[in-house]
């Protein structure tokens, strides 16, 4: 039962709206009419029974009144005539008048009725027999009962009224159904039509993707606003569609452009002698040029599978991978040297670099890298370094070995001067003076040479050195010269730096020594300052000395380069060369800014350890 109902409801749900409206109207109409008809019928049945009772009671009263005289004067004929007027009441079955002695006096029987009045007054007043109702009325004359009237009527009138009502309801139902059907045709125009239009429009839009379609607004109700919203939605979709098409076109154009750029890049990459590769922003290599595959003997895919590990010398692998990962993580340029295995199994030194390509917002798009075969260069460097090492070793041992005989020369010329001064003539004394002076200068020269060779020497692991403390030591060792020249040395706060303490001391010693040495008539004023340049500390040593002609500002750092040959400014010409060697050993730079008579400022930089390019004596030597 409930299934059937569900089914019928489901069937209703799928009906067209116009049909739904019609059915809804008809059902509502029928239910309303039926309910009101039922209500009216029930109310009427109750009321009408009462009404009938009252009506017949009144009728009985009238008949009784009219029957008093015939009864009083024993005139049944007149009484019968009076009763005969009751023919007008078709539902009155019978009217019987009984005398006071209970005998039948006069009667009226409906023509169609076959029964008669009982000849003797029956007992009890009102009773229903076979669907009929009897009412009894006493006939009174001046307060005395002189007889009894019994009226009997049937209740067919109620049934008749019911039939009449039913017929009326059916008639109204039929008429209103016809009107509803006619109305629904109009309603179809008002409600179903716009919906049908919407359906047609949506179907058309879905089929043709034509978003210029619009639905005509017929009414200003919900359907009207639905149509409005639908049209708005369509125009939004239309504009989005336009945008999408434009964007797609642009994107296709851009893709074409990008493809062109890529082709150009690949063409360039293929034509280059270097091994070129690109990687995505995660660092995964996605392109290698032909030079790579030719060199390694592996196809791109194989190389990609093998990765760096299979191609790179195991001694260089870890450092290179760390550097690559660091670059990918930070976006800083990649720079590494490593040995890569050629197809014939020979490892060759390569310099690999990679730079991140960024978009306008600085986001990394890709990495472009190259590996250059520097094997020959590297071998020459090695040769050069070996030669340099040999030379340095030679210079060191030579100067070291020379110290002994020079010291002997100095010692014994002094002994001669002391013991045999009187024996020597004036020429002998002069020559001895030259010998002593020469020996002394040779000693200084040898010392400076030793210092110079040491400046390039590799020391142990570097700790933090407090520059202020080193400066203080330096000033202490220079105390004599400072006092003699009445110099004023000032300093700003100095940082901790990661260099060899002896090297820093050499720097200060030479630069401050020079400032004291190349002074004017005024007492020297020397100021030491340090500032952080981001990747390095820059130290400045400023003086108010004689200054340097800018044309010599490069030359002064060469070994044995001296601007002043006169005796006023003594020296071996190695001091600034030592300074340069020390600074370059740490990847820094030294230069001077000056003008004659304006004093000079010597600058040198000491890069922070993280930014220190691995620079050894080799680099310096290679220059």
């Amino acid at each position, binding site marked *: 039962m409930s299934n059937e109902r569900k089914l019928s409801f489901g069937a209703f749900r799928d009906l067209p709206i116009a049909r739904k409206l019609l059915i809804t109207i008809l059902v509502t109409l029928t239910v309303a009419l039926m309910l009101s008809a039922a209500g009216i019928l029930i109310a009427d049945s109750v009321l009408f029974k009462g009404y009938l009772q009252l009506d017949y009671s009144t009728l009985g009263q009238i008949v009784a009144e009219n029957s008093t*005289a*015939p009864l*009083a*004067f*024993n005139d049944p004929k*007149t009484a019968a005539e009076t009763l005969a007027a009751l023919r007008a009441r078709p539902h009155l079955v019978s009217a019987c008048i009984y005398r006071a002695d209970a005998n039948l006096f006069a009667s009226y029987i409906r023509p169609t009725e076959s029964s008669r009045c009982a000849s003797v007054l029956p007992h009890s007043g009102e009773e229903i027999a076979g669907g009929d109702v009897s009412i009894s009325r006493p006939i009174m004359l001046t307060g005395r009962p002189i007889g009894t009237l019994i009226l009997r009527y049937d209740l067919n009138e109620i049934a008749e009224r019911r039939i009449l009502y039913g017929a009326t309801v059916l008639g109204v139902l039929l008429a209103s159904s016809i009107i509803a059907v006619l109305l629904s045709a109009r309603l179809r125009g008002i409600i179903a039509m716009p919906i049908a239009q919407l359906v047609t429009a949506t179907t058309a839009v879905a089929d043709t993707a034509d978003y210029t379609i619009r639905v005509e607004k017929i009414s200003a109700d919900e359907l009207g606003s639905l149509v409005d919203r639908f049209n708005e939605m369509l125009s939004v979709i239309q504009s989005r569609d336009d945008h999408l098409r434009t964007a797609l076109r642009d994107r296709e154009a851009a893709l074409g452009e990008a493809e062109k750029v890529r082709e150009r890049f690949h063409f360039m990459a293929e034509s280059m002698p270097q091994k070129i590769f690109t990687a995505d922003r995660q660092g995964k290599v996605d392109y290698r040029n032909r030079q790579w595959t030719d060199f390694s003997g592996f196809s791109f895919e194989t190389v990609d599978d093998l990765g760096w590990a299979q191609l790179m010398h195991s001694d260089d692998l870890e450092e290179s991978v760390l550097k690559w990962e660091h670059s990918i993580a930070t976006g800083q340029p990649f720079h590494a040297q490593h040995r890569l295995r050629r197809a014939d199994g020979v490892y060759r030194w390569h310099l690999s670099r990679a730079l991140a390509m960024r978009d306008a917002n600085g986001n990394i798009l890709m990495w472009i890298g190259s590996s250059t075969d520097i094997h020959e260069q590297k071998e020459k460097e090695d040769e050069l370094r070996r030669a340099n090492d040999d030379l340095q070793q030679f210079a060191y041992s030579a100067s070291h070995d020379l110290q002994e005989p020079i010291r002997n020369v100095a010692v014994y010329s002094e002994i001669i001067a002391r013991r045999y001064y009187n024996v020597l003539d004036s020429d002998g004394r002069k020559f001895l003076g030259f010998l002593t002076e020469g020996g002394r200068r040779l000693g200084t020269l040898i010392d400076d040479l030793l210092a110079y060779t040491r400046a390039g020497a590799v020391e142990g692991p570097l700790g933090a050195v407090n520059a202020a403390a080193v400066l203080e030591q330096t000033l202490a060792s220079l105390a004599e010269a400072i006092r003699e020249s009445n110099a004023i040395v000032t300093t700003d706060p100095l940082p901790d730096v990661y260099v060899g303490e002896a090297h820093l001391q050499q720097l200060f010693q030479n630069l401050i020594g020079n400032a004291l040495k190349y002074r004017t008539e005024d007492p020297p004023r020397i100021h030491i300052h340090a500032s952080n340049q981001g990747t390095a500390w820059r130290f400045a040593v400023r003086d108010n000395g004689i200054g340097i002609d800018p044309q010599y500002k490069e030359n002064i750092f060469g070994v044995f380069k001296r601007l002043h040959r006169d005796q006023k400014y003594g020296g071996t010409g190695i001091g600034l060369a030592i300074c340069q060697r020390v600074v370059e050993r740490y990847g820094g730079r030294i230069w001077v800014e000056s003008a004659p008579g304006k004093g000079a400022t010597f600058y040198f930089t000491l890069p922070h350890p993280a930014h220190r390019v691995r620079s050894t004596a080799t680099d310096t030597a290679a220059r």
Partner: protein
Amino acid sequence: MDSVNPLRTSPRISWTRRARSYSIVVLLCITGLFYQAIAAEEQSLEYQVKAAFLLNFTKFTEWPRSVFADANAPFSICVVGVDPFGSALDQIIRGEVIGGHRLAIQRIKRGTRPQTCQVVFIGKTEKDAGRILADLGPGVLTVGEGDSFLQEGGMISFVIENRRTRFDVNPTTAENAGLKLSSRLLSVARTVKH
């Protein structure tokens, strides 16, 4: 009456002649006696009905208030001359009250002028009804017997029709006497004269 239909007795005659001839004699005798008894009975029955009618007339008639001497005065039905009712009239009015007045019967001797009567009945034995009627004042309902009573100036007259007691009415006379007869009374009258 219907039972003496000779056709119904004829089969019995065929049974025995003697029995038939005796039966006829006996039946004739019984019938004669019966007739006499019934005539007397009918006489008394007729006046019982008339007594009842007489009382009922008072209930369909309106008297002016002025006819009563005072509120306690009785409502008098006067029978002039020979009283044909016997005790019937007395029996029927016992306990009856008209408009708050007790009913009373007065029997008036012939030649006496009826006074303080609301109803006067003149029986058919009185030959000079016209003179009696002429003496009566207003406010008296006059009831008599016979077809000529109304012509003599009476208001209601008993008549026998088909052996049933009925009455004729002359409402004009009543009206002239200041009385109003109910239309219902008129509706059951045999004839209404004007």
